[in-house]
Every structure is written in structure tokens, then in C-alpha cells.
């Protein structure tokens, strides 16, 4: 897998999402719960805007000195007995990890949930060298068994219902129990416990690396990242290069913002900071630790007007606030990063060619910007994307281009305009009911699929106004 999920066209993806009633219900209820959680936490603190300001200042300073902090981080990881590999591309990162797997002759790899390893397609790469890869986050495990991509960055299996999950467990793992979440989770615990104990290598992402210590901070509720980093003898952490803070003091602030903004918790059940290899006499933790720092297009964003997009701490608050995500769901974005932040960073990481529709998957209502705990101006980035798509890339959606071209020609000729204003009413007559068009033909269809359209009145505004003036004179 890469950032892009597949080849299905945007309109079809949106249609699939809109027709998926279970998914839409699940998304809407999840959004409500996450959003309420965040708002309750913010209200409890009372000075949420100060917290956001602090988060924003920390991220700004860190990104502006990213080379310095990454150097400090890597020095400290090495000092604590770890290896560090800087990977410019996904291929380089995957190759490095593959080499470790081969060298260790590893049969089984357990993974904790990580967006960056999804992004670079690490699982597929590891399977190529014959390793069995087991996702250990419950949601990710369900998706892995079902060979389905995540649809939300915090609850990846949001689009699946319990019956589907039970079927997957039954088909792939011989599960015979009921579809109650508790029973299925207990089954997953039992199955995955064996995987944790048998794994040769553990792979994690990284929520925040701490430069001053060389530590990697992991945030989970299930305790799976703790298993992955405690039991195998080799641990590899993969981090997007921007996922770093100067000291423990900034880590603390950002973790608190993350857990509050993501799930409305003060802290998740497990926050773990692991540093290098285990020390002499220690039993838990790896004897060999690797940190892979991934660029994969991020440096193209650095130093540009989009730099603040790299401030993202992957909390999904913007996704949970977005009215468009609410209706079309995560898969419609065709990116492992959905929602407003996905619409901002996907085109930056992979270019506009495949993702030119994403900046339009927004109402520009700015709910995302308001929700962001580190104050990324998401909707402004989306507007800027649209400008670039239209002005520089000449890649405005075809319908919009045709419409604009046609409109320019049509409206600049008074004769044609007046004639069509008169003709529109009888022409659209067959689709008109009580002055409204509910299922319009041709180019109107896109509009009337979602809402009704006022039927034309048979005269232009100018004609109407002229008539009104005349009436006024005579009365």
C-alpha cells in the first residue's frame, strides 16, 4: 500500500460512500462522540485557546529547527545503543527494514498501529522477504485479516460492523463465538498474545521522538505498542521526520493535546517512551533498536507556504469535525490520510495528478481549522491548493473548466443570454414540479442528486427589473 488506496475515480468513491448507510451512520456517531469528547476536555481546561497557542508555538519552533533536533535525536539514539537510518524515500526505508529482517532471519513481525508504515507500504515489503506481519492494534488487525484499508486514522475499522468483523474472524481465524465486541476482543487478545510472544521483530511508528533523550514516545489504549516493544529482541521504530519535539516538556504538552483532541481522554491508558536498546541486566525491551527517519516527500513541504501542514500531530480532530467526511467517509479520499488534513497533505506528498479533487472535498466552513489543536489553517491551505490547481497546474475538474468557459462565452453575449433565460423555463419543463427541479438532466444532475434546484422563471433579472420599473411608473 502507499498513500493512495486505489484506482477508482473520485466520483465513484464518493458515490460508494454516500450509498453506504452503515458507514455513514457509524461515521456520524463517531464524529459526534469524538467531537463531544474534545469539546468537554477543552471546556474543562477552560483556557483551550492558550493550549492551542502553545501547541502551535512548539510545532513552529521545532519545524524551523528540524535539522538541529533530528541531529540531536540521532546522536542520542546512537549513544543509547540504537541505530538510526535516514530514508529519503519509501523504498529506502523499506529496503533498510527488509535487510534487518533478512539478517535476523525473522519469521514473525508484530506491529503497533502506525500511519507512516502504511504510507510507505512496509507490510507488503516485509512479506516480500518472507516474513509474516501481524498488525496488533485491534482495528488494524481486523482490517489486515479482511485486506481492507483504514478509513480513519484513529479508529481505522470504523466502517465495519460487528457482523462483518465476526465473519472475518470466523473465516480467517476459525472464530466460533458471538458478535459481541467483548467476546471478539477477548478472542483477539488470546490470538495476538501468542503472536507477541513468538515475534522475532517488533515494528512501531512514533508519536513523538524526544530529541534531548533519543526517546520514542508511543500512545495507545490497548497496550499493544508496549507488547511490541517489550517482548521481541529486535525493535524498529519508523517515524515521519517531523514527528519530533525538543524535550520531555514539549512531549508532555503535545501528548495531552493529542489525547484530548483525538479521543477526549486526558491521557490514553498507555504512554510509553522507549530509549535505545535495553540496558545491561534488563530483560524487557530490545537488544537491538533501530530508528528509521522517513522523508518521503515531506521535505518538499518544508520552507513553503504549506509548512504548517507538517505541524500535524495526527489526532484526527479535523476529520471528526468535517461535514464532508461525515457524508463520504474515509475511503472516498483515496488516501490513507483522509479528511481535511488528508486533503491538504496528500497532494503535497504525492502531487496533484492523482489527488486534484481532494481540495474540493470541503465546504471551506473552517470547522477543521477551529478544531485543530496546533492551529493549522487547514481551510486556508485548501483554498490555496485550489488556486494552484486552477492557475498553475491547469487541473481544475473538467466539469468546472467547461462550465466556466461556457459561462464566459454565454454570459458575455446579451442576445444569447436573454434568449436562453427565456428558453430555460420551457426547456426544463418536463423536469419541473411545483417550481422545483428534483432530478435534473445533463449537467444539472450533479446538483440535483444532492439538492433541489429552483426552476427558471422565464425572464432574466434585468428584464424583470425593467418591467418592475415600468410598472412603478404607470401606477
Amino acid at each position, binding site marked *: 500500500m502507499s498513500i493512495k488506496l486505489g484506482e477508482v475515480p473520485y466520483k465513484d468513491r464518493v458515490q460508494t460512500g454516500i450509498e453506504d448507510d452503515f458507514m455513514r451512520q457509524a461515521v456520524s456517531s463517531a464524529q459526534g462522540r469524538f467531537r463531544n469528547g474534545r469539546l468537554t476536555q477543552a471546556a474543562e481546561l477552560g483556557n483551550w485557546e492558550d493550549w492551542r497557542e502553545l501547541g502551535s508555538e512548539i510545532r513552529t519552533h521545532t519545524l524551523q529547527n528540524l535539522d538541529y533536533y533530528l541531529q540531536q535525536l540521532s*546522536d542520542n539514539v*546512537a549513544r543509547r545503543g540504537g541505530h538510526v537510518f535516514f530514508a529519503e524515500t519509501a523504498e529506502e526505508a523499506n529496503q533498510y527494514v527488509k535487510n534487518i529482517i533478512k539478517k535476523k532471519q525473522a519469521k514473525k513481525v508484530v506491529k503497533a498501529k502506525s500511519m507512516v508504515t502504511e504510507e510507505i507500504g512496509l507490510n507488503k515489503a516485509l512479506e516480500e522477504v518472507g516474513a509474516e506481519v501481524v498488525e496488533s492494534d485491534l482495528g488494524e488487525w481486523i482490517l489486515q485479516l479482511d485486506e481492507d484499508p483504514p478509513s480513519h486514522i484513529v479508529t481505522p475499522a470504523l466502517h465495519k460492523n*460487528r457482523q462483518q468483523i465476526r465473519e472475518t474472524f470466523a473465516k480467517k481465524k476459525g472464530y466460533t463465538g458471538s458478535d459481541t465486541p467483548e467476546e471478539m476482543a477477548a478472542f483477539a487478545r488470546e490470538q495476538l498474545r501468542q503472536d507477541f510472544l513468538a515475534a522475532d521483530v517488533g515494528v512501531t511508528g512514533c508519536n513523538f521522538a524526544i530529541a534531548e533523550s533519543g526517546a520514542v514516545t508511543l500512545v495507545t489504549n490497548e497496550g499493544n505498542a508496549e507488547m511490541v516493544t517489550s517482548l521481541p529482541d529486535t525493535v524498529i521504530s519508523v517515524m515521519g521526520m517531523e514527528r519530533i519535539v525538543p524535550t520531555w516538556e514539549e512531549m508532555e504538552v503535545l501528548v495531552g493535546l493529542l489525547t484530548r483532541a483525538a479521543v477526549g481522554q486526558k491521557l490514553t*491508558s498507555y504512554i510509553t517512551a522507549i530509549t535505545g536498546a535495553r540496558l545491561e*541486566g534488563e530483560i524487557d525491551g530490545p537488544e537491538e533498536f533501530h530508528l528509521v527517519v522517513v522523508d518521503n516527500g515531506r521535505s518538499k513541504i518544508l520552507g513553503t507556504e504549506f509548512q504548517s501542514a507538517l505541524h500535524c500531530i495526527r489526532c484526527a480532530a479535523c476529520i471528526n469535525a468535517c461535514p464532508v467526511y461525515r457524508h463520504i467517509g474515509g475511503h472516498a479520499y483515496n488516501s490513507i490520510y483522509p479528511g481535511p488534513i488528508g486533503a491538504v497533505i496528500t497532494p503535497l506528498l504525492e502531487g496533484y495528478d492523482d489527488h486534484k479533487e481532494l481540495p474540493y472535498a470541503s465546504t471551506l466552513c473552517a470547522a477543521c481549522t477551529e478544531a485543530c489543536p496546533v492551529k493549522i489553517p487547514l481551510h486556508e491551505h485548501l483554498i490555496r491548493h485550489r488556486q494552484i490547481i486552477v492557475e498553475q497546474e491547469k487541473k481544475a475538474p473538467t466539469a468546472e473548466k467547461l462550465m466556466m468557459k461556457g459561462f464566459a462565452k454565454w454570459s458575455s453575449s446579451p442576445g444569447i443570454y436573454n434568449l436562453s433565460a427565456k428558453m430555460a423555463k420551457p426547456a426544463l419543463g418536463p423536469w419541473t414540479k411545483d417550481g422545483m427541479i428534483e432530478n435534473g438532466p445533463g449537467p444539472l444532475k450533479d446538483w440535483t442528486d444532492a439538492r433541489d434546484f429552483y426552476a427558471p422563471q422565464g425572464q432574466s433579472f434585468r428584464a424583470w427589473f425593467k418591467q418592475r420599473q415600468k410598472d412603478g411608473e404607470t401606477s
Partner: protein
Amino acid sequence: MTIENREEFLNKLASRLGRERRTEGVERPQWSVTPQEEVFKGMNQDELAEVLEKHCQVIHTTFKRTDRAGLTKVLQETIEGYEGKLIVTSNDPRHQEFGVAEFFEEAREQLDVHVWDPAAGKENQRIAEQADVGLVYSDITLAESGTVTLFNNKNNGRSISLLPKTFIAVIPKSTLVPRMTQAAQQIHRAQAQGEDCASYVSFISGPSNSADIEMNLIVGVHGPIKATYILVD
């Protein structure tokens, strides 16, 4: 230990940022706001204990409070409640200090207590995996989030609070601080003075849980299924 491709990678970042590489002299600025300092500011240990107790309800954790003399009895009841036969615990001087070592000695007919032993190697993990109860002492306790902080080391393995079915943390009242801010400051100050942090720093807030199936909260996933905090005055 190897560091690969660093110079090229970081030079590129500096160039994207439109300046020379920064290899020294970067200081954190004075942040314009510090809301983290204000939370529960000025509260005494008893007030913080109340905050902790209240938050334990949110994180599905049983909260008990006792004093040094009552600890043994509360501990015994809690272990019984968890049907604990096999206990795994850290090799911790606080066992003596709180009279827990004595309790283990007295209860040795009923309880099989494994004290973490670096010399026993991976056997420690195997026992922890079978254990009914993992028992540890909190190093720093965060009132706001109901969090037990552990500096894991060779005498206090990470597995103790992770692999057993249930988890008991003894919380000396003196370890209470308002929130994670104070723990982070403590680790940062030590690091700045050249004292390395533990290879594992664990912030644990109650039992493991997940909401990955239809957003239903399930308590007890990969880590312990139940947790009890015992605050000792």
C-alpha cells in the same frame, strides 16, 4: 552504533529552510503562554488525592486508600478479589519500607510471589505472562489523568504491569503531582544534568481498553483487564 545518510538528509532540510545547517546554539524560545503550569496549581497532597480518586472512575480503575499499617490488609483483599495465586512484582526496596515483604512471607502458603530477578532472564517474562496479578509502586503519580509513572529498569521489568491479567499499583502519597507536566519537568531536569532517562518510561492510566469495534468501549485488551490503585498515606 550506526547513523546512516544523516548529513545529506539534514543538509537538504537546511537548504529547504533556506539557511545554513544548524548544529548548535538552538534554544527553545520562551513560550508566550504556559497553561500547563496552571492546572491544580497550589493544591496540597490531600487535594490531589481527591482529584486522583475522582478520575479513577473515568478510567475504570478501583481506588483504595489506606495508611502504612493498613496496607497489608488492603493488598490481601485486592489480591483475593482478583483470585490472585501467582503474583509478579518488582525487586523494590519499597517492599521493606511498606511492610509488603513481610506480608509476602506470611502469605507464602497461599501466594506464589515471583520477585523480578535479572539473573533469571526470559523466565521472568514467562512467569509474568502466567501471573494473575502484577504489583508495582508508582514512581510519580499524576492526579489529573490517574496515571502511574514507572521508570522501568533491570529490577522492575516492563512486563510486570503489562502481561498479568490484573494490575495493582501502590501509590505512596508523596509521589502525587498535579499532572504530567511535573513528571516531564523532573525527567528533563535530570537529562539536562547528564542523567539519562530510563530505557522504558511508562505512563499507565488504568487497564487497557479499545473502542475499535463499533466504538464500543471494551476494557481489557492486550494489557491487564482490571486495575486497582492503593494510595498509602
